[in-house]
């Protein structure tokens, strides 16, 4: 299965992946990017599903690894997390926001969603209109790639 891989050697810490992610999961994603992104994100705190870590000149982005033996899915008390065709999905309707998944994820890749009531995670842009991961498409230096390994 194709997965997102991050090569920190090429990560510039520009944080564009976070913004592209935040935009990808808004309703206007897919339309003329420059205007729609400004409309969707301007003046707002963003809640991306990918997060850049940085320290002392080292940068890398972290998003769900879509583990084959996922602790988050096993630990979900609501049965809201599941694996579908290798992609770990969250059913935010079922999620009650207990954050056992936050407790479980060894990568720190699941986080409370914007409203604070449910969890959110990278679903490889399978549930928005992007078609393929927006973080990958927008990475200026191929530091984030989406491929089979």
């Amino acid at each position, binding site marked *: 299965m194709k997965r997102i891989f991050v090569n920190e050697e090429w990560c*510039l*810490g*520009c*944080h*564009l992946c976070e*913004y592209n992610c935040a935009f990808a999961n808004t309703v206007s994603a897919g339309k003329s990017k*420059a205007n729609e992104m*400004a409309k969707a*994100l301007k003046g707002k705190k963003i809640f991306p599903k990918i997060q850049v870590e940085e320290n002392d000149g080292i940068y890398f982005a972290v998003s769900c690894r879509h583990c084959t033996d996922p602790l988050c899915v096993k630990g979900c008390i609501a049965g809201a997390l599941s694996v579908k065709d290798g992609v770990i999905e969250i059913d935010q309707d079922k999620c009650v926001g207990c954050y056992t998944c936050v407790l479980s994820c060894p990568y720190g890749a699941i986080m409370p969603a914007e409203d604070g009531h449910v969890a959110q995670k990278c679903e490889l842009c399978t549930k928005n209109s992007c078609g393929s991961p927006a973080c990958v498409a927008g990475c200026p*230096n191929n530091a984030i790639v989406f491929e089979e390994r």
Partner: protein
Amino acid sequence: MDYQYPEFEVVRNADRCIGCRACERQCANEVHYYDADLGKMMCDESKCVNCQRCVTLCPTRALKIVKSDNTFRENANWTMENIREIYKQAETGGVLLSSMGNPKPLPVYWDKILINASQVTNPPIDPLREPMETRTFLGQKPTEVKRDENGKIINNLSSQLKLEVPIMFSAMSFGSISKNAHESLARAATELGTYYNTGEGGLHKDFYQYGPNTIVQVASGRFGVHKEYLEAGAAIEIKMGQGAKPGIGGHLPGTKTVGEVSRTRMIPEGSDAISPAPHHDIYSIEDLRQLVFSLKEATEYKKPVIVKIAAVHNVAAIASGIARSGADIIAIDGFRGGTGAAPTRIRDNVGIPIELALASVDERLRQEGIRGNVSIVVGGSIRNSADVVKAIALGADAVYIGSAACIAMGCHQCRACHAAKCNWGIATQRPDLVKRLNPDVGYKRLVNLVQAWNHEIKEMMGGMGINSIESLKGNRLMLRGVGLNEKELEILGIKHAGE
């Protein structure tokens, strides 16, 4: 008091800026910053070199850089630039430094030359249907075919460089450009079946694997030259001069001679790498001949030797000498050739256009009957595939591209290489900037560019009814001048359009 006024303005569309701060994080010149009190992005345009990095990365296209319309009381004689430079020198007392090629509005002869196409007779060839050869070989060509007693041909061909496309990447040293830029060039040359050139910085140990597609340079500073280095390359280039700064040497400041650069150049960390103006052992063609044969001897006559010179006034006579020195290839660098740093006055006023230099060299060598002694490679602002076709028709065997290669890798010609803060990760050694050029990306873009050009070259050749680059070589009948005077046409050896 600062007499200067910022050259550029940073225009931010406040409606679009989402405050992601990518511009701030990506500007090594620290133009952009976030003002917490105002709660918005601000900028100090005086630091802007207009490299377009922020513009390119801005996800909402909220930025543009424009030329400041603040005007000095300039006129046709006292231009802004002249006034600005005087202020600068009056302030600093220093020699002005510049980067990249001559930007002056001197004639670009490529743009005054037009290419022929076949019509009814000698019909054009469709490169999509017919084979079309862009492969070429560089090196001495024997004057006669020799046969043994059985009538079989004796191979009397000296070592040659085989190029799948008549385009090579010109010399840019590791030091003047980054390791990632070098890797991009090396990998692209390998995939394209052509060559890149180490410049005078030595060959990084990681890149010996690309040796079969590497031209190793020996310049006046002899930095990084050793036996393995010479043996690693496919050819050796003796650099006598450079188009951007004919007659002067090079200077890599100690601040850039760090880490791998110093190791590769084999000089102490932090020491200035000064390449003298002349080779201290070359004061004549005879001296040059000695170096050519020393290098050949050292590499068992397996590698062609290139002698690279800048296009200067008596370039034809110089080339004639080189063609008799034992060199296999002459590389001529025109006055628009790029550089990582050169004194502005030299860059802008010394040397001659490559088109004229090429035409006169080719013509002179033909007249003297020694054209076959050498191949001719020209560089110095080859900007597109039409320039390549015109150069070959004027008599070149192949071209070198440097600036175009840099642009393919992301260079936006801001011409601030000498500041060593290249935001595109090309002309810098700062690790945080170097990493901005991922060779996986850079190499692919170079391959794309050259492949695209090669397609276009085939199209143009097909249009002329020519199916091999060898048939185009020196075929000046395929060229016509426009808006050129008699003298220019005479030197170029072409007729005026309509003739």
